[in-house]
């Protein structure tokens, strides 16, 4: 008896599940599908509840996507025709999604916003969402890189105030290094990170690519000057020649004074506060990046995540309402409290008193001068090449000239398809 009963029961269950599945789909045809990543995807559910209360006719289904898989999943979803109606996207992914034709241009909808709302964003961040002259997304939260440093060690070295120029910066690092000895360093610049050399190059006014991003422009004087400065930090022993494998625990090493300065983003405000020993709580802080000459602060990278609407969606209006809702200063404040992600709206910063917060202040200043990396789909690949050649130069397997020439050659190869497409489009 029971021998046939079990499969029968399984079949019954399967049938039931199938029927239920159909029912879920049937009731959900009106739902707006919203993909959000990692922790943001978890916390945004609470905001979505409020949105649904205010818009009883719109049902939102939030799907949480892990950060590590998000980029790939968006690409495959686009190919498979399974894109959500609205989604969170790292703003460096936008050029690629634009090339895929996956995004709905938002200029017309944004034009209906009052000017006061449109001007409430950091211009450098908004710029990352503009590709080929159209706006493709609305900033959700922002992110850039500033200097995290041990205020006690810098003060001992004669810098109670953070350095404002490259010259002062170098001097401060030399003095720190002198005090900490050969086993410890002034600054940590993990070899895998392309951001530090790129930030330095942008600060010198480099464009990185030339002729409408058709060719690499790494042998130009500004990039060279930035690379000289960057390599010098390793040559003079101010930064360890260490990849991420040599770092067992960033926070422990920072606490022990293995390094005193570190270029990092807003996520580390929370992490440092949580993970550093209690006696260190008042011995570290943040500062905007020094500038090569006058004009403090020097520019940093425009990062963060934006909200975008799929071109293929048939619920664009409802999706847009969700984007507008999440962009309201009150929701931005709530979201900041839930996640610690820095709000994209300046009004939300003011409401939270963030510009005056000791450690958020540096970000407030820095966000006024941020710049985006070249907005082309190939950028991530070029960035990987930059760290690869920078590493070769740091290790001395290449001279700076060989590295920059090799970089230009490789980047020109990477951009070959882009040149062909631009020629074909008659641009």
């Amino acid at each position, binding site marked *: 008896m029971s021998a046939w009963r079990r499969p029968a029961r399984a079949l019954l269950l399967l049938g039931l599940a199938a029927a239920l599945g159909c029912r879920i789909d049937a009731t959900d045809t009106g739902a707006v599908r919203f993909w959000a990543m990692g922790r943001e995807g978890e916390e945004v559910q609470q905001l979505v509840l409020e949105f649904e209360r205010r818009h009883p006719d719109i049902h939102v289904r939030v799907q949480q996507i892990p950060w590590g898989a998000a980029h790939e999943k968006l690409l495959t979803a686009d190919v498979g025709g399974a894109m959500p109606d609205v989604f969170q996207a790292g703003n460096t992914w936008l050029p690629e999604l634009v090339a895929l034709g*996956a995004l709905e241009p938002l200029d017309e909808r944004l034009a209906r916003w009052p000017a006061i709302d449109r001007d409430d964003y950091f211009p450098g961040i908004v710029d990352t969402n503009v590709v080929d002259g159209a706006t493709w997304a609305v900033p959700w939260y922002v992110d850039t890189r500033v200097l995290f440093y041990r205020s006690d060690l810098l003060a001992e070295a004669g810098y109670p105030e953070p350095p404002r120029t490259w010259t002062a910066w170098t001097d401060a690092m030399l003095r720190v290094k002198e005090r900490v000895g050969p086993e410890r360093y002034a600054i940590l610049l993990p070899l895998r990170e392309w951001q530090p050399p790129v930030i330095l190059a942008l600060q010198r006014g480099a464009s990185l690519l030339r002729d409408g991003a058709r060719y690499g422009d790494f042998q130009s004087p500004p990039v060279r000057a930035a690379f000289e400065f960057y390599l010098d930090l390793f040559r003079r022993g101010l930064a360890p020649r*260490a*990849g991420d*494998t040599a770092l067992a625990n960033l926070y422990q090493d920072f606490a022990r004074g293995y390094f005193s300065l570190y270029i990092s983003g807003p996520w580390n405000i929370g992490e440092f506060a949580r993970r550093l020993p209690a006696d260190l709580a008042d011995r570290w802080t943040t500062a905007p990046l020094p500038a090569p000459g006058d004009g403090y602060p020097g520019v940093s990278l425009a990062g963060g995540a934006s909200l975008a609407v799929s071109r293929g969606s048939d619920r664009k209006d409802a999706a847009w309402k969700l984007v507008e809702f999440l962009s309201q200063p009150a929701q931005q404040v709530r979201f900041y409290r839930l996640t610690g992600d820095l709000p994209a709206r300046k009004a939300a910063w003011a409401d939270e008193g963030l510009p005056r917060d000791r450690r958020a202040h540096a970000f407030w200043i820095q966000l006024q001068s941020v710049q985006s990396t070249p907005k082309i789909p190939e950028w991530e690949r070029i960035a990987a090449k930059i760290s690869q050649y920078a590493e070769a130069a740091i290790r001395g397997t290449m001279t700076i000239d060989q590295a920059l020439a090799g970089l230009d050659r490789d980047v020109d190869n990477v951009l070959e*398809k882009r040149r062909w497409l631009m020629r074909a489009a008659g641009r």
Partner: protein
Amino acid sequence: MGRGRINPAWGFVGPALLAIGAFFFVPVAASLLLSFTDFDVYAVARPDRLRFVALGNYARLLGEPRFWTALGNTAYFVVVGGPLSVGVSLGAALLLEAKLARWKGFFRTVFFLPVVTTLVAVAVVWRYLYHPRHGLLNLLLGLAGIHPIDWLGDPRWAMPAIILLAVWKNFGFNMVIFIAGLQSIPERLYEAARLDGASAWQQFRRVTLPMLAPTFLFVAVVTMIGYFQLFAEPYVMTQGGPANSTLSVVLLMYEEGFRWWNMGYGAAVAFVLFAIILSLTLAERGLRRLQPGAR
């Protein structure tokens, strides 16, 4: 058998053939075609942005220094890591099959354990062992008076570190196969050898090794093929660094294909690797034919 009558065997092998065809041969053929195009992120949405480049990908690949670096690293891993792994496996098998060995089942399990452990978990632990300042390995070297080595951060030491990890992780599998091989050698051969006055070394050289020859070939081929596909170890430990010193061919393929979405170029890397492995496997079979006593 009359015309129009289908051999009933097809009915039995049909489903399996269909599955293999649909999920193996079709994708392989498709990726071969892909390797003659420049399929990339631009071409995903717009087929008109796809170009047929014939052997262009292969030509570019052979002209790229990074590919040769990757091939060199992979060859280093196979040439050093392969024999080392086989040697350690054989040694462990001999020890476990020795007359004096106790607790055989226990040690067999312990030695086999790394094989079934998740590599990512293993990598986390080994990264701590290899840590230049706080690692156990450098601590032990320090006791012996040897200067600390930046195992995963120094381009000279990164590959040896990967090899060490890979050998430790994989030797248990080959060890089990060698044990099976050793157990199938009839005891009477050893008895006869002993009666003839053969020493332990002579027994090993004249009885054990020749009797293990087929096992050896199998282990060598499988290990070589597996080691050529080096990917997971550098992927989780070093991401190909430092300075590309642990970049393997498969890691290069993964980067091109799945990180940068250059599917065409990535497919070309895969087929070059396939050609290399195939020719080496055929060469190994050829070697076996040259062996005296083989048919």
